[in-house]
């Protein structure tokens, strides 16, 4: 394997890793982390035995739930755009750079 291809593969791997990390974070957010958020807490009767966060007032719970839901919605949108649009464009541009360098047999130095 020549230096140009090795360099390109390194960049390709980095781009794919970034996409995978973002997908992992999205998975963590939607499954485990959001389970911590008290979104459904408003439906729970404020008894200390049922929920730890029962000491909060209803207004505070509403404000926490609203910001959490908004955060989740915006985040999912941002990660989708990033993974489906921005990173594929960079992947294509990296490939284009590689082909350009390969064609002229010059080193691929970012």
């Amino acid at each position, binding site marked *: 394997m020549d230096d140009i291809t090795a360099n390109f593969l390194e960049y390709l791997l980095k781009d794919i890793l*970034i996409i995978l*990390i973002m997908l992992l*974070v999205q998975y*963590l*957010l939607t499954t*485990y*982390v*959001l389970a*911590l*958020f*008290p979104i459904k807490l408003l439906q729970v009767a404020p008894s*200390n035995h049922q929920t*730890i*966060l*029962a*000491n*909060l*007032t209803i207004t*505070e*719970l509403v*404000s*926490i739930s*609203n*910001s*959490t839901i*908004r*955060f989740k919605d*915006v*985040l999912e949108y*941002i990660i989708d755009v*990033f993974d489906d649009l*921005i990173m594929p464009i*960079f992947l294509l*541009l*990296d490939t284009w*750079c590689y082909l*350009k*360098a390969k*064609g*002229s047999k*010059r080193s*691929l*130095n*970012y």
Partner: protein
Amino acid sequence: MVTANVSFNYTITASVSNVASLSYYPLIFLVLLILPLIVLIITLRINISNSAKIFIMLFNIVYLLLLPGILISIMGDFELKFYIYEIILNNNHLTSYFSIISSYLAGIYSFGTFIILIFIIISFIMFCYYKSKEVYNCWKKKY
């Protein structure tokens, strides 16, 4: 030192510093919220390569994405201690102070999620900027 036998067969012991340490929770929240901003400013300010900047931005984004989870876990911890100390102290005047801290935490959390969203958007934009700079460096070369 206060010792209480709470309903079942276990004993909880709490010292004054244990109870007073609850007042540090808003401070922890603020430090956790300010940390990514400091990282962002330092990354933009210092002279390092584009690849290093992309790497730091990416981990800043991952930290920011998981930050609300961290904050809500800390809040759960606080509320649990709040509940335990409330029972130990028998609902006396001191426990009303905890409610004030609790509402501070809820306020910082609600406001913090907006701040985090802004930081995430800025970090994403900077990430894309430095990534495109890398590609542009390759593009402008005359082969």
